């Protein structure tokens, strides 16, 4: 570490020495973050404020008076809420199970949940297209059990988007909740149980309240990731169900309106930050902002 060459300034306060060491440690990462991330992103964001002649809010005005774009934002948030709720509904029991079974079974459950994340988004989505499409696996299945007579499918529906997105985002929920549940001692539940409380009662009055931080932070991260995905919603939802991230992509590569892409990017970024900052602080308070959701690999 470069800090070692600075000698040992014994005269300095302990606090200062600590900061200095920390700053040296953090410098390379900060450099990458600033030059290769904040700067380019800033570049795009600035575009949103550049009009024909200098700084202007015209692109923002164009966005906010337009029912179409407000509709896009509405759909984005609606989908994100539903996706988050579904992840929670499936993810909590799964995390609870993973927390209370033996280590081998736990590993298997975790692997099961993170496996889809390890595949490239294009492939994963392709899989869903074949499953959800007309004449696809789901359609064949429904026909086989006699639920429908004709080929059907969930492609180009919001339900289809939710299904495909929950598959990718479920691990973020499960791992975050699992992180909290694992720190919770099972003894507490055991004690409540020996005192005569039923399983469901213990779950409701002991486990669930103690898991709230995990549930909240899991929900925040799922929400943030779901509003910022575009490949899956675009491919599964089709052009008739646009979402914000897809709309940015369209503005940037379809209509080449980089200023407008900048406006939408800014709004998306602000929303994401509004969600991620409480998330980060929540995780920090649990002295564990680092845990959970680590295997975000492969998410768009």
């Amino acid at each position: 570490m470069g800090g070692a060459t600075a000698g040992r300034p014994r005269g300095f306060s302990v606090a200062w020495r600590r900061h200095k060491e920390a700053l040296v440690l953090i410098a390379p990462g900060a450099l990458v973050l600033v030059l290769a991330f904040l700067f380019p992103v800033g570049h795009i964001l600035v575009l949103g404020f550049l009009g024909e002649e200098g700084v202007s809010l015209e692109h923002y005005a164009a966005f906010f008076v337009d029912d179409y774009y407000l509709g896009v934002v509405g759909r984005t948030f609606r989908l994100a809420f539903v996706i988050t709720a579904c992840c929670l509904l499936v993810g909590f029991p799964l995390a609870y199970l993973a927390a209370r079974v033996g280590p081998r079974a736990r590993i298997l459950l975790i692997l099961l949940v993170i496996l889809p994340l390890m595949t490239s988004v294009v492939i994963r989505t392709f899989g869903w297209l074949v499953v959800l499409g007309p004449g696809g696996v789901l359609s064949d299945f429904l026909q086989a059990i006699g639920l429908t007579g004709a080929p059907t499918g969930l492609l180009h529906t919001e339900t289809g988007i939710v299904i495909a997105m929950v598959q990718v985002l479920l691990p973020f929920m499960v791992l975050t909740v699992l992180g909290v549940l694992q720190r919770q001692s099972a003894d507490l539940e055991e004690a409540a149980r020996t005192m005569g409380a039923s399983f469901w009662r213990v779950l409701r009055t002991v486990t669930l309240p103690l898991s709230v931080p995990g549930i909240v932070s899991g929900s925040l991260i799922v929400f943030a990731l779901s509003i910022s995905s575009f490949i899956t919603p675009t491919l599964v939802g089709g052009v008739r169900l646009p979402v914000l991230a897809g709309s940015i992509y369209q503005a940037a590569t379809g209509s080449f309106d980089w200023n407008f892409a900048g406006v939408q990017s800014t709004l998306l970024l602000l929303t994401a930050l509004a969600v991620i900052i409480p998330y980060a602080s929540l995780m920090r308070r649990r002295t564990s902002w680092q845990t959970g959701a680590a295997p975000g690999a492969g998410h768009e």
Partner: protein
Amino acid sequence: MISGVPAGARAIAVIIVGAVVIFMLVPLAVVVLSSFSASQFLVFPPRGLSLHWYGAVFGDQAYVAAGWTSLKLAILVTALATLVGTPAAIALTWHRLPGREILAGLFLSPLVLPTLIFGLGLLMVYSIYGNGPSFSGLVVGHLVICIPFVIRTVGAVLGASDPSLHEAARTMGANRLQAYWHVVLPQARPGIAAGAFFAFNISFDDAVVALFLRAPGMETLPIRIYSQLEFSPDPSVAAVSTIMIVITIGLVVLIDRFLGLRRVV
């Protein structure tokens, strides 16, 4: 298993696990099975069975070259991301920096920001201030999206360990380097390994940043797949994906061998 779980809850657990197994694995199974198709199309169920498409992948210069590019890229990115991310994680976990919360949020923000905004921005910056996209430019782009994972995994392990050990080593006269080398790094090792695993995986799988930073002679495997899907989708795409899935599983096994999965996930 804890005692006193009612039959109803056990039944629900079985149903949920069963449903999740199907839900998580069916789309992947579809991809894998399609790769053995004898047909020209990516249709399911595959019509006829053959290994033809695997032969096509290995016989295709473009796929092979893209595979090497992706491998080189991922290895380089993994090395750099762990080198840069580990110290940052130590600082964010053990040092009481003012505004640590916000700093942590900033460091993790590449995780939640749509990669497309970042990819587009990076392309602009490279073009305006440099010579356009290049291999090293792509390395930097991937570095940005991989570092947060190293910070996370290393931070998780360090957060669970005891900073006072490090303090103790220092009080006992170890210099900074010694303290980091002998005390901190061994403690952080499972986190570093996990971070490296994720970094490799992300870099190897990324399609979005690579899409924006395309340059001559550096097509990555996901971009190759993307091109193939756009213009002439045939089961070779499924075959390549299956190979990529196998590589990932191989990595998981490897990390289990050397570290034990339990310490990583």
